[in-house]
């Protein structure tokens, strides 16, 4: 039984739907730019990510047809989102709380990099000067003990 005409399980969506979703995406783009100009502290990131997630959901549901397709494709998509969330959230637990366990000393990957000789890096406490040859002597610019508290509101995982 080969049904040649109905082979592709066609869900031909109306033109207006595509244009409507496109318009909604453009509108949300403008909204996210406008909201970003209003200082809301840590909420700026929350609002920006919420709007981005709504836009992503619109693209995935209608342009990528997940809303109409077999559930299996949505499950694959959801597994991706979930895996990434777990990956990023657990990483953040580690990197943000590490300072509570032991003293963190960030080391430059290459302490002799030309970057550290640039004027912009002088006198910031972050610089390793040319005469320092051992990475171990590097003073950490990242003191998670102090940044931990400041960044708590902004350190949300980026989601997708």
């Amino acid at each position: 039984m080969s049904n040649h005409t109905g082979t592709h399980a066609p869900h031909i969506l109306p033109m207006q739907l595509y244009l409507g979703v496109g318009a909604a995406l453009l509108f949300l783009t403008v909204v996210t730019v406008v909201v970003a100009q209003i200082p809301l502290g840590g909420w700026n990131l929350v609002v920006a990510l919420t709007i981005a997630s709504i836009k992503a959901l619109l693209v995935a549901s209608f342009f990528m047809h997940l809303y109409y397709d077999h559930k299996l494709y949505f499950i694959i998509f959801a597994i991706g989102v979930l895996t990434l969330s777990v990956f990023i959230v657990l990483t953040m637990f580690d990197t943000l709380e590490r300072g509570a366990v032991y003293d963190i000393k960030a080391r430059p990957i290459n302490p002799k990099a030309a970057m550290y000789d640039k004027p912009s890096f002088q006198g910031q406490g972050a610089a390793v000067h040319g005469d320092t040859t051992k990475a171990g002597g590097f003073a950490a610019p990242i003191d998670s003990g102090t940044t931990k508290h400041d960044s708590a509101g902004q350190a949300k995982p980026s989601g997708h």
Partner: protein
Amino acid sequence: MHNTAGGHPAHLQHHFSDSEQQASASKLGMWLFLLTEMLLFGGLFAAYSIYRAWNPEMFYEAHKQLNVQLGMINTIVLITSSVTMALAIRSIQLNKRKIAVRFLIATLLFAAVFLVIKYFEYSHKFHLGQLPGKYYTFTGLQGANPHIFFSIYFMMTGLHGIHVIGGMGLIGWMLSRTTRNHFSPEYYTPLEMTGLYWHLVDLIWIFLFPLLYLIG
């Protein structure tokens, strides 16, 4: 229209029982590929989260060096290209090949506009020395480690840009195949898969734009 040979459409591979099974298999493979793409970018999103959490002030100061207008125009361009891509597939579903060709050309043009704008953004940053890691020579930013922001900026937008270039190659190929009458309402799987890929590229930019350009 069916290109039948012994009762089977020409596009149907012998190891599938029917066209529907073949199309579902393709789509499953494509979604698994898109899953790996999400995880590929996910590593960079994780790096972004870690460094932004460690350096919130630096990220805020450094992001002001990006041009929000250009970023917003590029977002609009990419969303519009996603709409034209979806409409190209819709046109093939309705057997309107010539209209599909026009939508594919439009998609290709929008992708090119995106890259041209990106080129101007990049060349401006190259000129100022706002470059990744040890190549960073810009002196206009105070505070520690602004080069980290630009490392992440260039890696994320760069990987995305490579995907846009790859997408243009695919769309160009699909454009050529559509003009050569390879697709019909019965068979347009390659076009549909290209569409899925292109929408994912759009989807990733939807997150990159606020995270890089709109740090509150």
